[in-house]
């Protein structure tokens, strides 16, 4: 089989899963819907390995295969096939997406075990995996946009999965609205590409763009629009506000869609369109600046946020900022390497967080209410700490190699990029601090009552309640199920976490500077024509940057240890002293408030104006009232003729006949 036919298998398996579960859920007893979903995604991962192996057998320059199913649109100017592209980049993304998705499916089998919407959840989740694979396998911009919109829809469906929670549905709407901004930008970008380069196929467009001069206006605009699309999907400033709210969805959704896979689609898009960005370095530099801004912003918010899942969400935003910095600094393999390791450790962190939140009876996500879970949840503690250490780029863990590679490339590119690299170092210090702030606050310190209870072997059980608002709920469909599951009690949660923990530890060995070049060598055919492919930092420089990164990580962890373990009062006194800064960070730099003032309230005011003024006065009054008024006046006239008196009718008739006769008399004379 060729890589392309493996690619079709990869794509069709989750589609079959989602259709099978959606149509046959009545016939699927117990947890079989979940297992069916997991198996299809698992087989999809195996097909991805088949794709990888067959691709590796081909000579370097042939590792770029397009397989077309049929002509999708065929006109004079637009020719679009339903085609997939099998090259190292898409294979890489397929492996990451389907692999992590499989593990999270298995985790969800027990995590959502008692939920009344169990089969629906897996139908959605498989649909998401299908859409994401379509996004990464597409061979042209049209199919990319299809996949792009599908993952947005899947994200909406899964954020609002507990649809009777108002907070969840409004978070879903927010995510959808902001994603649509990106979709529109992407559609316009595709139009410009068609207009400028004459084709929507990746390979044709990338061939044609070489004729375009550097920094040509339309091309820069196209790249900026692509960036808007990427930023909306990847939660970068200024389109990031939906991502923290998306944590309203079930925790596996946060792990899969809003940490490991979908939100990294923007990074994939930039890497995929690298020939365009290399021709428009201005746009790439703007992207890098925004990525850096985002990574600093999100790290500062993660420092002070108290909701466990939202801390991890901000850390996701921050880490995607690193990836964006990587790919816009033309360090594609570094950015994608960080994408891969981030998928491992961030999915792991979310799984751990899900376990902890379950231990609290799913009623609270605030780290102020957590503490001392180390004894009660040893497995969760160990895996979560591994994830946090990888996030903090603790030396020799996966995040250590990938994050510092991104920074090393940024420093190597010089100019504005070296400034961005230094800023990214500063944020790395913050990252280490907030990662271990979570660990120390959740697992160390005085055990909370739930932790004590759990240590005695009993899972806390509190009435169902919305963790955000504290409202009473029930456990029927549209709400979380009655039972909660922690990793310690269920092997199907434990196994994926163990696998991810191992990957988070050893995932870095594929790209150790000066030793291994796994990612770089594998991805080389995709980026072979890049101007920057050979322009990489010397191994010695990279090792130096690695050392700096390691020292910063250790410093950050030590600071967190000092603040939260050794001198627990320090955090409060620092907060008192830096109150304005703290409140600025705690309000997420006032982005939500700003958008509320700038967009939400004016739109609401406009809506109210439309309802009270336009609708009542113009539509109801002038248009509807005017039309009925004309009809009413006409009928009143017609009615006034109908007197009901026979003699009046006779008179009218006679008068009419006389008038007619007179007319003809006069006319003939």
């Amino acid at each position: 089989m060729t890589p392309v036919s493996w690619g079709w298998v990869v794509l069709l398996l989750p589609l079959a899963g989602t259709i099978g579960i959606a149509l046959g859920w009545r016939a699927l007893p117990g947890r079989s819907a979940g297992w069916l979903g997991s198996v299809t995604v698992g087989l999809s991962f195996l097909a991805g390995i088949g794709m990888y192996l067959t691709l590796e057998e081909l000579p370097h320059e042939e590792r770029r295969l397009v397989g077309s199913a049929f002509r999708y649109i065929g006109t004079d100017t637009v020719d679009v096939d339903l085609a997939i592209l099998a090259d190292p980049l898409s294979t890489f993304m397929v492996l990451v997406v389907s692999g992590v998705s499989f593990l999270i499916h298995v985790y969800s089998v027990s995590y959502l075990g008692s939920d009344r919407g169990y089969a629906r959840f897996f139908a959605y989740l498989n649909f998401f995996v299908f859409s994401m694979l379509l996004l990464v396998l597409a061979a042209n911009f049209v199919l990319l946009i299809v996949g792009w919109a599908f993952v947005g829809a899947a994200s909406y469906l899964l954020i609002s999965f507990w649809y009777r929670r108002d907070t969840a549905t409004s978070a879903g709407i927010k995510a959808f609205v902001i994603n649509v901004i990106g979709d529109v930008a992407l559609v316009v970008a595709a139009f410009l590409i068609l207009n400028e380069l004459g084709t929507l196929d990746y390979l044709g467009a990338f061939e044609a763009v070489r004729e375009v001069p550097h920094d040509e206006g339309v091309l820069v605009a196209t790249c900026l629009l692509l960036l808007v699309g990427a930023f909306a999907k990847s939660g970068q400033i200024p389109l990031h506000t939906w991502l923290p709210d998306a944590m309203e969805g079930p925790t596996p959704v946060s792990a899969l869609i809003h940490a490991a896979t979908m939100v990294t689609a923007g990074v994939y898009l930039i890497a995929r369109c690298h020939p365009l960005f290399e021709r428009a370095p201005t746009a790439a530099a703007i992207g890098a600046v925004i990525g850096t801004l985002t990574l600093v912003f999100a790290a500062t918010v993660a420092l002070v946020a108290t909701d466990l899942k939202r801390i991890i969400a901000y850390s996701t935003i921050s880490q995607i900022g690193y990836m964006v910095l990587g790919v816009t600094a033309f360090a594609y393999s570094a950015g994608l390497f960080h994408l891969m390791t981030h998928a491992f450790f961030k999915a792991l962190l979310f799984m751990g967080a899900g376990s902890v939140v379950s231990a609290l009876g799913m009623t609270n996500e605030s780290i102020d209410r957590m503490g001392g879970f180390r004894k009660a949840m040893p497995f969760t503690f160990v895996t979560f700490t591994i994830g946090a250490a990888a996030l903090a780029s603790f030396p020799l863990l996966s995040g250590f190699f990938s994050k510092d590679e991104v920074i090393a490339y940024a420093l190597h590119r010089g100019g504005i990029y070296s400034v961005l690299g230094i800023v990214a170092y500063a944020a790395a210090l913050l990252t280490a601090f907030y990662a271990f702030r979570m660990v120390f606050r959740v697992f160390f310190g005085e055990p909370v009552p739930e932790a004590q209870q759990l240590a005695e072997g009993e899972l806390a059980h509190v009435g169902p309640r919305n963790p955000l608002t504290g409202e009473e709920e029930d456990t029927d469909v549209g709400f979380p199920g009655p039972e909660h599951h922690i990793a310690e009690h269920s092997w199907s949660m434990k196994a994926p976490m163990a696998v991810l923990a191992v990957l988070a530890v050893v995932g870095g060995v594929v790209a150790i500077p000066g030793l291994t070049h796994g990612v770089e060598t594998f991805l080389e055919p995709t980026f072979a024509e890049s101007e920057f492919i050979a322009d990489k930092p010397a191994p010695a420089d990279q090792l130096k940057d690695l050392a700096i990164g390691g020292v910063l990580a250790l410093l950050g962890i030590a600071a967190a240890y000092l603040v939260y373990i050794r001198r627990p009062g320090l955090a409060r006194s620092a907060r008192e002293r830096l109150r304005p800064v703290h409140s600025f960070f705690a309000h997420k730099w006032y982005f939500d408030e700003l958008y509320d003032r700038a967009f939400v309230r004016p739109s609401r005011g406009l809506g109210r104006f439309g309802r009270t003024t336009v609708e009542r006065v113009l539509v109801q009054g002038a248009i509807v009232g005017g039309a009925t008024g004309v009809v009413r006046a006409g009928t009143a006239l017609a009615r006034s003729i109908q007197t009901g008196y026979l003699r009046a009718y006779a008179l009218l008739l006679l008068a009419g006949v006389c008038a007619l006769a007179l007319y003809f008399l006069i006319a003939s004379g």
Partner: protein
Amino acid sequence: MGIAWFVVLSAFIFCIGAAGVLTRRNPLVILLCLELMLNAGNLALIAFARASGNGDGQVFALIVMVVAACEVVIGLGLIVAMYRRKLPIDADQMSELRG
């Protein structure tokens, strides 16, 4: 005698009939006046037929008589129906079709 005399007489009778229809309220009288109008028309038709020298107008007059007979049947039927339902025999009071 010139045709003008016949036509003037016919118009005169027609006007009497029309005035009767417009002024009287008793449906029986209205019916009678209608007959007057029809017969005025007949008179004119026959006069014109004689003047033009063929029988076409006479045929029309015969048809008008048949129509008049039918009309009287229906009209009288209506009046009998009104009488049997104890409705007032007055055209002005039968004004339920007022818009």
